[in-house]
């Protein structure tokens, strides 16, 4: 819900910036731990996508029952939506106290009952899951609940994405699909991914509203998602927001992304949304250098604290595991005899 007036605009911007900074700081920490060999498995960063991600996550309302289905580069959006920093830290560090209890790791986390479905790796697969969550809400008379789902440029090539988006359109569900076109899918440039001019050209084909924005400009992201969420909530059906930006990291931290030419960083949509937002804060005098320094320090502390806590927690113990995959315990088969 937008409250207009300059103060509201400032507050929203500052709040978003704080989530962006928290996400960036947290991910820098995780990347450092990864380099130090303290993280098992992959580490995938949202560097460069924080504005786009946070603008959606922040403007959805967990209290209202909204849904936010983040993918691998949505640290900012997840936090802004309401994922506790401890959930992230614990999952990356494999703590048994985390929401995935060491069974799943890194970005494969969630709390489905609090509007945060836990992504599976298969790209595109979460779109229809969010649809289903919205269908369930509608069955219970809630049509004012919005679901946000993230996807990348690469993910739009999946059949699951298409089926999911079309399904949402046919059912006129309050889905906001956020396409972060960061110009690459792993090493693959968009020229090998799609042949339209802009992915927002797809909206008409689903009969839904499309938006095409600079995903590095926080204010634009905030405004656009505010409108998209409002329209979805009002019953106007799915909204597709395509943000152009650039992945400012490797696909994962194992990848030096040599294949991304430096020129791209100088081109429009190639900038660092966090630096841009920081500049704007200063230009508009919404925050001073001192305030920013204090915020940075405070954010760093929050991250260190969460990571330290997660690191101190126990790893999962295989002898305490139930080793059954069913909720209906009595129907679970024993492990084979020889085992």
């Amino acid at each position: 819900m937008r409250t207009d007036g300059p103060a509201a605009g400032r507050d929203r911007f500052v709040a978003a910036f704080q989530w962006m900074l928290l996400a960036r700081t947290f991910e820098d920490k995780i990347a450092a731990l990864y380099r130090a060999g303290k993280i098992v498995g992959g580490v995938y960063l949202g560097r460069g996508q924080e504005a786009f991600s946070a603008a959606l996550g922040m403007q959805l309302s967990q209290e209202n029952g909204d849904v936010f289905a983040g993918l691998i580069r949505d640290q900012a959006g997840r936090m802004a939506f309401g994922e506790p920093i401890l959930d992230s830290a614990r999952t990356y560090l494999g703590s048994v106290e985390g929401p995935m209890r060491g069974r799943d790791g890194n970005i494969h986390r969630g709390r489905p009952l609090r509007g945060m479905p836990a992504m599976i790796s298969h790209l595109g697969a979460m779109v229809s899951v969010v649809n289903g969550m919205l269908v369930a809400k509608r069955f219970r008379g809630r049509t004012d609940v919005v679901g946000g789902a993230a996807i990348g440029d690469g993910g739009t090539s999946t059949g699951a994405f298409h089926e999911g988006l079309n399904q949402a359109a046919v059912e006129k569900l309050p889905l906001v699909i956020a396409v972060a076109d960061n110009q690459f899918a792993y090493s693959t440039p968009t020229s090998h991914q799609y042949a339209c001019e802009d992915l927002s050209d797809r909206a008409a084909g689903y009969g839904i509203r499309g938006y095409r924005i600079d995903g590095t400009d926080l204010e634009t992201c905030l405004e656009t998602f505010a409108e998209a969420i409002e329209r979805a909530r009002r019953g106007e059906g799915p909204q597709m927001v395509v943000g152009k930006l650039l992945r400012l990291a490797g696909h994962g931290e194992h990848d030096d992304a040599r294949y991304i030419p430096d020129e791209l960083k100088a081109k429009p949509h190639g900038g660092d949304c966090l630096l841009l937002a920081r500049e704007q804060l200063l230009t508009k005098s919404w925050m001073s250098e001192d305030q920013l320094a204090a915020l940075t320090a405070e954010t760093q502390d929050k991250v260190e604290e969460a990571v330290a806590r997660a690191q101190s927690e126990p790893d999962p113990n295989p002898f305490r595991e139930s080793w059954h995959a069913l909720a209906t315990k009595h129907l679970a088969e024993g492990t084979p005899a020889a085992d």
Partner: protein
Amino acid sequence: MAITYLDAIREAQARALEEDENVYIYGQDVANFGGAFKATKGLSDRFPDRVIDAPISEDAIIGSAIGAAIEGMRPIVEMQFADFSSIGFNQIINQAATHFWRTGVPCPITIRLPSGGTEGSGPFHSQSMESIYAHYPGLIVMTPATVEDAYGMLLEAIRIDDPVIFCEHKLLYYHLKAEELPKVILPVGKARIARAGRHATVVACSAMVHEALRAARELAEDGWEIEVVDLRSAKPIDTDTILASVARTGRLLAVAESFPWGGLTSEIVSRVASEGFHLLDAPPQRLNSKDTPIPYHPNLWRVHRPTWQSIASATRNLIQL
């Protein structure tokens, strides 16, 4: 009034819709049209908001049912044919099957698969996929062989907190009849002795139970008493009941309509060989379809799948081993 296997499936859904407002049906042509096999006929009249036509999007159909299930709904998904679940495969095995284990939040969906061969259906409208789904942790796979079980197990499937793959056999839809719907049914997870015997045990499920029973009647004419075990669910398998039967008979033939490599029959034979080796008086045997796609032409199809004739002959061999 005789009730068919198909009626039972419809009635179970009607009752579930009636008893629990979290239940809904989602699938292609399930609403007004009542489904390709009429398994949902009339239900959309009674529950107009809870029987919903889907686009031709098996992945999204199952994905959205999963999403709704996470939120506490109890969706019943009808695949038009079991064979088309191959499109929803990823959502079934990677999303639905892993959900409870990963998140602790149950995913109570029921996926109805019109399964098995019929004359002239060919390679893409005849498949039995219980062995594929049973391979995956986190799924329950039901394979009812009787009108009673079609009804009772489907009701149970909908109530269970886990994803259930419900394999209904198309060949049984119209021809299998009962006098009335059952009041009580055997719990899921328990096999049933469909015919008692002492010379050999034939384990089967779904339509193959009826082929096995007919083979048993045939052999009875020569004085052989064949015990037929109706598995009822492919996962879990009621190993205890099978072992108890083999303890009585000393001989095992496992029969299934699915492809020969690594499916239900190999699972049964290997369990009995591992856990009941000393009960066996003869090598345990298996019978499956042939290792080719399922043929269209009835001449070929009848030979491709196990029938009472091939079961009878395999059982005779077994008895003489």
